[in-house]
Every structure is written in C-alpha cells, then in structure tokens.
C-alpha cells in the first residue's frame, strides 16, 4: 500500500542543515495499522508529511497505492490527497468559523459532490464517531475529545484508503485518548483502512499491528 525506498529529507536553511529523515525503507501493507514512536524532533511528523504528499522528500522513492506519486503535478497531488488520504492532527485543525458539519464536509467540497450528498455523508461520518447530535455546534463549543472525533469524521468522510494521524491523542487525557483509539481501531478492522499513526504513548502503540521506532531520522526498529 505504502512503499518508501531510501527516502531522505533534509531541511536546509542559510545556516544549518537538518536531516529529518535518513534513508528510510518502509513497506506498509493494505489494512495495516502502524504506529511510529521516537523522541521529539526525530522526524515522525516529517515522515507522515512525506507519505501524505504534504512535503517532498529530498531523495528516495515513494509509492502509494501502487502509484509513484512523486511525479504528480500539483493538481494531481491535490486530487490524490483528496481521494486517497485522510489526515488527523494533534491540534485538530478545525476551522473555528464553520459548524461541525461544515467542517466535516470540507474534503467533499473539493470533489464534485452535491450539497445533499455532502450533508448525508457528513452526517453519517459524524454518527460513526458518535457526534451526530453536535452537527450544528461550533468547534469552540466542544471538548478536546469531541474536537478530535470531529476531525476523524472529517478524515473519513471521503472514505480514504489511508489515514495519517499525527499524535491524535496527544492533546487528550487517557480516557478521551482511548475513545479516539477505539474509533481508529474499529475503522481499521471494519473498513480495512490502512492507518499510520504517530504516538508518544506506548499503550496506544501496543494496540496497533506494528510499531516503528525512529531515532534522529533513522529507523531503529
């Protein structure tokens, strides 16, 4: 499903050069739930961004869903992100000026989906994270756990093949964190969604199929 060959990412500024990823080789199969751990600054987010086509690797080859996505132009990249990928972030990234349902339907807005269908799909996605009754609330009226569940609904509303989650439970207490984790596991098991999740929490990592450890940009386990 996801294949990285000798992928490196170097950030160059005027004064320093940071190797965020150092020759990563990685294969993730369809339906796998992989967690990534490692100390702060070791390159976990960078790895996720590279897989998610939000950032380009300096070197190496990436294949996602059998397509060598690196050669895509910007339009094709956007379209690929829109149709194949779902993102979940530590800080939720909900748009404060949009209601819950309007936040959830965002990915569909960049596809040609009718307003009616958008509404139906978004309501269904919200139902699956248990927030259907909060549709017309605004993000500021929700708890952290609820916000992250909205973000998950947004990530899955377009039915993506791959979910990329960067510390989805990082801002949540353990109770809410477990709730979110339950939803992700259910998605993985019931929809066969491939999930790559960065976490700092060993207990969360233990519940996934495979654990990947990064250290200073290199894969150590």
């Amino acid at each position: 499903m996801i294949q990285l060959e000798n992928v490196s990412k170097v950030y160059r500024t005027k004064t320093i050069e940071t190797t965020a990823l150092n020759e990563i080789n990685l294969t993730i199969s369809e339906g796998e739930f992989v967690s990534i751990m490692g100390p702060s600054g070791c390159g976990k987010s960078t790895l996720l961004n590279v897989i998610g086509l939000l950032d380009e690797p300096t070197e190496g080859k990436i294949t996602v869903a059998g397509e060598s996505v690196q050669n895509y132009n910007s339009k094709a990249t956007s379209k690929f992100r829109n149709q194949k990928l779902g993102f979940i972030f530590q800080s939720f990234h909900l748009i404060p000026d949009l209601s819950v349902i309007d936040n959830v339907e965002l990915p569909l807005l960049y596809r040609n989906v009718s307003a009616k269908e958008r509404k139906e799909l978004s309501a269904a996605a919200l139902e699956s994270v248990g927030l259907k009754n909060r549709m017309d609330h605004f993000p500021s009226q929700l708890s952290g756990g609820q916000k992250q569940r909205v973000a998950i609904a947004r990530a899955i509303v377009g039915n993506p093949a791959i979910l990329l989650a960067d510390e989805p439970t990082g801002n949540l207490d353990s109770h809410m964190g477990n709730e979110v984790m339950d939803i992700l596991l259910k998605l993985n098991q019931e929809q066969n969604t491939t999930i790559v999740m960065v976490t700092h929490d060993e207990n969360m990592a233990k519940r996934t199929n495979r654990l990947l450890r990064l250290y200073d940009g290199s894969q150590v386990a």
Partner: protein
Amino acid sequence: MIKHIFKLIWNKRRSNALILIEIFLAFLVLFAVLSYVIYNMRMLSAPLGFETKDKWMVYLDDLSSKDSLEVLEMKNTLHRELLNLDNIESVSYTENINPYSGNQSRTGGDAMGFNISSLLAFVDSDFANALDMNVVQGRWFQEEDLNSTYPSIILNQAFIDEYFGGKNMIDSMLLFRGEHKVIGVVDAFRYLGEFSENQPHAFYQVPRHSKEANNLVLGMAPNTPAAYEEKVNNLISDITKSSSFIIKNIDQMKKSDSRDTWIPLIALLSICGFLCINVALGLFGVLWYNINKRRGEIGLRRAVGAHSSDISKQFIFEILILTFIAVFLGIFFAIQVPLLKIGPLEPINMYYAIAISTGIILTLVTLCALHPSWQASKLHPATALHED
C-alpha cells in the same frame, strides 16, 4: 463553493461588518465627490458657443452724458480705424456683455402665457462674427434688421428646448420684453464661465452708435501678441480722447474665472485620492492579517485536497462578495438621490458617479486582494499545518 463562502462570511459577520461599513462609506463619499466632479467636467466639455482665443474686450467710458452726434461720429471712426489695424479682423459694439465677470443680465416675463426667464445680451450685427459663434438655425442680425417692422431676436438652443420643446421657432413671434421676431438660433452662449450651465439666452440687437453700447469685442488675428495691445490702446485713446478705458483678453478672463472652480475640484479629488489610498491600505492590512491568522485553515484545506488556486480563489471571492454587498447597499442609498430628485444636480451626473464609484471600489478591492491571496496560495501546507 459559493455557498460555503457565504457561510464563512456569515459566521464571521462581526469582523466582516467593519470591512463592509468601510467599503460602504468609501463608496458613498466617492459617489458624492464624483457626482460633483462629473457635473463640472460635463459642463467643462460642453461647447461654450464662442471662441475666447485671440478675442479682446474693450470697456469704453460711460457715453451717456455725451452729445449723441459726437458719439455717433466717434464710434464710426473708432470702428473704421480699428478695422484698419492689421491684426484686427472684426469689431463689434455691445452693451452689457461681461464674459467671466460674474455679472449677468437676466429678466423674466409671462407675456407668452407661461413664465420665461432668460439671460439677455444687447449686441450689434458683428457680434457673432467677432466671437465666432455658431448660428445653427436662421441667421445673425444684419444692419437692415434695425429698420424692419418687428425688432429681431436671436435665441440659444437651450431657450428653444426649455420653452418651446425644441421646435423650429424661426420667423415666429416671441413676446418677451416686447414683440420680437425670431430670426436665428445659436447653439450656446455660456459666457458666465467654463463650468456654467447652458441657460436660456436671448440676444437683442442694438445700433452700433448707441450710447449704451460702450463695450467692444475685437476679433484678433490668430496669435496676436500681447504687446499689440499698446497699439490698440494708442489708437483708442487718440480717438476717444480718454485714457480710462480698459482692454482685456477674454481668454485670460476665462482662465482666471475657471481657477475658482478648479481649486475646490482638485482639492476634492485629492481628498478622494487619499481616501482611496487609505481604504486600500486598510483593506490590504486586514486581508493580510486575516490570511496570516488563517494559516492553519489554509494548511488544512490543502491537506484535504484544495489546490493552491482553490485557496487564492476562496480568499478573493470572500472579499469580493463582501464588496458586492457593500457596493449594493451603497448603490441602494446613492440611487435614492436622483430617483427622489434631491439636490441640485441632474440625475445623469449621479448615474455616472454611481457607475464610476462602483468601478473604482471593485478595482481597488481586487488589487488589494490579489497579493495576499496569492501569498496564501503559495503557503507550504506542511509549514502552515505545523505552526498551530
């Protein structure tokens, strides 16, 4: 997508209201100033009805206390001798014509059965020729007209349009300060200023030798130097045995008269210019601030599949929709002025002002929105998402 943008605008109605009010007020100020400017520009570009270049005026001393025969003699000599000068092409005697002096002679009457109010001029048969006026119907006075049964009258087009619906009045009798026969129509005679309205005007004929006709209009050869005035001055002073007459260049009188209108006009336009710059800077700042505040949103939208062009489009649409609402409100209020016929200006000026204000505001906003929106679209998604 448009519906989505409307939702965004509505949900942010508090902060958007400020932008809306700013654009709305800027529109109204522009509308007011432009109405005034357009009115004046339209006056400025309308035909004056006569030439001012190489036209001189001579104001002779008061002749009323002098002996009639002497005056006749003197005026005939003056007429002849002036025409003999190389650079003088035409000479006309008039009564009270004072171009650009602010003085005007006006009268009203209802002998025709309705009220007529008109500017008046008492001039001789050479007047139209001396000032290169445009006779559009009939003809100008001739010396023989002084002997005809009914005295002649010449009107301007505005007179005919205002009181006779533009119909052909040649050879008709007009009861206005006595019974007169209309013999000609001139296109205009706006001698009150370049910015003056084209008002009804009537010309009555006076004999050249009349004591009251103590002003002269001189049609000079093209590009007669100012120094030539001395020659004219000497001649007049020899013949009239006086030195208290005045010679003036009509073109210069026109220019100094127009200055009184140009100065407030330019001042207003400058204020308007500053207003536009201010609004532009304000908008630019607000847009810049908003877009920076929304970096996370931009990153998120890119992550869920928005192309960079979707981002710039969104921001431009947001501000343009807001602008359309503000301008729409502005037009709604502005258009009441001509519709309800408030104020002194003709409606056409205000319709032009509305169109131009709309154009200026839309251009201004688009220009202000382009750069920040482009900047927003160039934001790297990973960086934008990273920051929150």
